[in-house]
C-alpha cells in the first residue's frame, strides 16, 4: 500500500543518491589533481556548488515531509538521518574544494613530493571510505557502515603521524604546508564518512553509535 | 424543451394536488370547530357554567355539575392512571428484554385498542355491581383506558433518551436506578407529559364507559360512591332531547366547554414544563 509519504521519500532519496555520486566524484577529482599536480580547482568548485545546492534541496524536502506527514518510527529516523547525511555529503564537496584551492594557491598546483609516503596511503583509505559510505547509503547497509570505524581509526593514525613528522621538518616549504593542510582536509572527509556511517546504523537499527 | 415544459406542468399538478388533499383533510376539523364555536358561544354565560342541570325542556339552569363531574372523574382517573402508566413505561424501556416485558407490551397493545364500551362493562361488573353507580367506578374505567396510552408513550419517550446521557451519569458513579429517575426522566419529561396530555384529552371525551359507571345526574357532586354528572353524558342527553330549541344549544355549549377545557389543560401544563434554560 503506497502512502503519500512514499513519493516524497523517493524524491528525497533521489537527491541524496545524486549527492552521493557527485560527492564521490568531487573527492576523486580533487585527490587526483593533488596527487598528479593538476589544476582542477575550477571543476571541483562547480561540483562543490552543485553539492551545496542539492543539500539545500534535501533539507527543504525533508522539512516539507515532516510538516506534511508528521512521520514516526522508521520514517522519522530516515528523514532525520538524511538531513545529517546531506550535510556530510556537502562537506565532502567543501573539503575537496579546500584541497584543490590550497594546492593551487600555495603550491601553484605543482606535484608536491611526499617524503614519508604517507599521503598516498591516506588518500587510498579516504577514497575507499567515501565510496563505502555512499554505497552503504544506497543500500542502507549497516554492516558496511560499521566497518568505516576501522578505517577512520587508521586515517587518524596516519594524520597524527604526518603532523608529528612535519613538525620536526626544519624548513617549511610551500609544499610542506600544502601537504599538512591537505592531510587535515582528508582527515575531515574521513570524519564525515564516519558520521554518515553512524546515521546509517541509526536508520537501520535505531541505535545511536559512535564510529570515531 | 418540450420535455422540460411537460415536467414543469406535471410538477405543478402534483403540488396542487397535495395542497388540495391537505385542504380536504382540514375541512372536517375546521368545520367542527367553527360549528361548535358558532353554535356554542350563544349558549354560554355565567349562569350556564354555574347552575345545576335542569330537566329536559326546562329553560334556565346550566351545566355546572357536568363540568365539575368531568373534572373530578378525569382527575381521579389521572391520579390512578398516570403513576401506573409512567412507571410501567419506564420499566418497559429500561428492561425491555425480560419475558415479563414482552408479555406486558403485548397486553398493553391489546388494551389500547379495547372498545370503550367493553371497558365500561368491566367497570360495571367490577365496581358498580359491588358498590353501585359511582364516581370511583368511572374513574377506574377511565384509568383503564389511560394506562395503556401513558405506558406506551412513556416507554417511547424514555427510549428516545440517548444512551450517552445514561452513560455519562453512570460513569459519574450514580447507581442505575437513580440515573433513571433523575437524569433519564428529566430528559424524557416533555415526551412523557405529551403522552399524559394525550391520554387526558382522550378520556375526557369518552362517553361509553361513563354510561355504565357513573350513570350521570343533574346534581352536584355527592360523594365518591354516588353517581355524578359529566360533560359527555350531558351532551349526549341534551342532544337526544325532543326539545330542540332549548336543549340542543345546551349540547353545543357543553361541547364547546369540553373542547376549551382540554385546550386549557394542555396550555397550562406546557407552560409549567417549558425549557427553563435557554
Amino acid at each position, binding site marked *: 500500500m503506497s502512502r503519500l509519504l512514499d513519493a516524497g521519500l523517493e524524491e528525497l532519496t533521489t537527491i541524496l543518491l545524486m549527492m552521493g555520486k557527485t560527492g564521490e566524484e568531487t573527492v576523486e577529482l580533487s585527490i587526483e589533481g593533488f596527487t598528479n599536480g593538476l589544476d582542477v580547482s575550477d571543476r571541483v568548485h562547480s561540483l562543490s556548488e552543485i553539492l551545496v545546492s542539492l543539500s539545500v534541496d534535501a533539507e527543504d524536502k525533508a522539512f516539507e515531509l515532516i510538516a506534511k506527514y*508528521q512521520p514516526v518510527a522508521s520514517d522519522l529516523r530516515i528523514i532525520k538521518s538524511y538531513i545529517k547525511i546531506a550535510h556530510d555529503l556537502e562537506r565532502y564537496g567543501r573539503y575537496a574544494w579546500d584541497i584543490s584551492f590550497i594546492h593551487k594557491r600555495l603550491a601553484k598546483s605543482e606535484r608536491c613530493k611526499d617524503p614519508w609516503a604517507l599521503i598516498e596511503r591516506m588518500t587510498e583509505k579516504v577514497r575507499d571510505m567515501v565510496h563505502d559510505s555512499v554505497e552503504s547509503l544506497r543500500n542502507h547497509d549497516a554492516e558496511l557502515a560499521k566497518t568505516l*570505524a576501522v578505517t577512520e581509526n587508521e586515517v587518524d593514525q596516519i594524520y597524527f603521524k604526518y603532523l608529528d613528522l612535519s613538525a620536526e621538518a626544519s624548513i617549511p616549504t610551500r609544499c610542506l604546508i600544502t601537504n599538512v593542510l591537505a592531510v587535515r582536509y582528508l582527515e575531515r572527509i574521513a570524519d564525515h564518512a564516519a558520521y554518515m556511517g553512524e546515521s546509517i546504523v541509526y536508520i537501520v537499527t535505531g541505535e*545511536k553509535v559512535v*564510529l570515531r | 424543451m418540450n420535455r422540460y415544459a411537460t415536467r414543469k406542468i406535471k410538477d405543478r399538478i402534483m403540488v396542487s394536488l397535495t395542497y388540495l388533499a391537505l385542504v380536504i383533510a382540514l375541512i372536517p376539523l375546521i368545520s367542527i370547530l367553527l360549528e361548535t364555536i358558532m353554535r356554542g358561544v350563544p349558549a354560554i354565560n355565567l349562569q350556564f357554567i354555574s347552575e345545576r342541570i335542569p330537566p329536559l325542556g326546562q329553560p334556565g339552569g346550566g351545566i355546572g355539575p357536568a363540568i365539575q363531574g368531568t373534572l373530578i372523574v378525569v382527575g381521579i382517573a389521572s391520579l390512578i392512571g398516570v403513576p401506573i402508566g409512567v412507571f410501567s413505561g419506564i420499566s418497559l424501556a429500561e428492561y425491555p428484554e425480560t419475558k415479563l416485558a414482552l408479555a406486558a407490551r403485548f397486553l398493553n397493545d391489546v388494551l389500547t385498542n379495547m372498545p370503550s364500551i367493553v371497558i365500561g362493562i368491566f367497570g360495571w361488573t367490577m365496581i358498580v355491581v359491588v358498590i353501585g353507580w359511582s364516581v370511583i367506578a368511572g374513574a377506574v374505567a377511565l384509568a383503564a383506558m389511560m394506562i395503556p396510552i401513558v405506558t406506551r408513550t412513556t416507554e417511547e419517550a424514555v427510549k428516545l433518551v440517548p444512551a*450517552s*446521557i445514561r452513560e*455519562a451519569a453512570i460513569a459519574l458513579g450514580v447507581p442505575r436506578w437513580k440515573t433513571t429517575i433523575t437524569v433519564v426522566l428529566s430528559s424524557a419529561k416533555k415526551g412523557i407529559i405529551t403522552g399524559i396530555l394525550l391520554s387526558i384529552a382522550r378520556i375526557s371525551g369518552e362517553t361509553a364507559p361513563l354510561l355504565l359507571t357513573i350513570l350521570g345526574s343533574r346534581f352536584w357532586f355527592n360523594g365518591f360512591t354516588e353517581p355524578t354528572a359529566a360533560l359527555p353524558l350531558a351532551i349526549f342527553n341534551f342532544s337526544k332531547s325532543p326539545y330542540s330549541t332549548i336543549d340542543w344549544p345546551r349540547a353545543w355549549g357543553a361541547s364547546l366547554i369540553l373542547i376549551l377545557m382540554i385546550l386549557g389543560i394542555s396550555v397550562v401544563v406546557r407552560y409549567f414544563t417549558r425549557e427553563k*434554560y435557554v
Partner: protein
Amino acid sequence: MYKYETSLSVETEKIPVSELMSYKIEIEGLNAWFGNNQVLKDINMKIRENAATAVIGPSGCGKTTLIRCLNRMHELVAGTRVSGKVLLDGEDIYGGNVDPVTVRRRIGMVFQKPNPFPMMSIYDNAVAGLKLNGINDKRKLDETVEKSLKSANLWDEVKDKLDKSGSSLSGGQQQRLCIARALAVEPEIILMDEPCSALDPIATAKIESLMRNLSEDYTVVIVTHNMQQAARVSDFTAFLYLGELIEYGSTEDIFENPKNELTEKYLTGKFG
C-alpha cells in the same frame, strides 16, 4: 574497534522514567467478550500513576473495550463478559464484593461525543456528580463549580453564564464541561475515549494541552486513533491489535524505534 553508546549524556536532562514512579492500575490476564466474540485477549499492563498513557491501534482492536473494563462499564451491555484482574491501588475491582458504583466514583470518564446533561445548566452539569450523590451544600457546590471549571480551562469563558443551558456551548466547550463534570467528583483516574474526534483543530489543541496539565495530578488513560495526538500528549503508549497488547513502552521509544514489526507497520501507516 568501534564502541557503542546508547544515548549521549550531553543531551537535555530527561527525567528518567525510573522505577521510583508507582503503578496506579495493574491489569492482569484481562479478557473480555461481546457474546461469543473475544475482544480482549490476555492483557497484562501496568499503568503509571500521575502520567498519561495512550492506547492506540486500528479500529476494532479493543482499545475502547479496554478502558471500559477499567471502570466496569463494559459489563453494562447485555451479553458481555470479563475475566481477569484489574488492580486499583492493589485491590481487584472485579473482586467478589466490590460495588461497581464505588469504582466508578474513583474513575472518571470522558466520552467521544460531548454529552452534557441537556436539561441542566452549566452550573448543574459541573456539579451533577455531587448533586446526584446527595451533596447539596451550596457553598461546597459553588466552590466545586469554580474549581473544576478552572481545572478544565473553561471558567473564564462561562463564569458569567453559569445558568445557561449546557447545550448552548460550542463542541469544544461542551467537552471541557464534561471534563469539569468528571473532575468535580475528585477521581484518581481519568479515562478518555477519543475525546477530540468530534472537535475542530483549535478545540482539540485546547483539550490536548489540558490533558498534559491533568496528567501531572491524575492518572490519565487516553484512547485515540490519532497517533500524533498520542505522541503529543502521552508519556507511555500501548499498541493494541485484534485484542492483544502488541507493544507497550515510553512514548518516545515507541514512536522513534518500535521493537515490534506490527507496531512499526501501524505507526508508519503501512496497514490501516
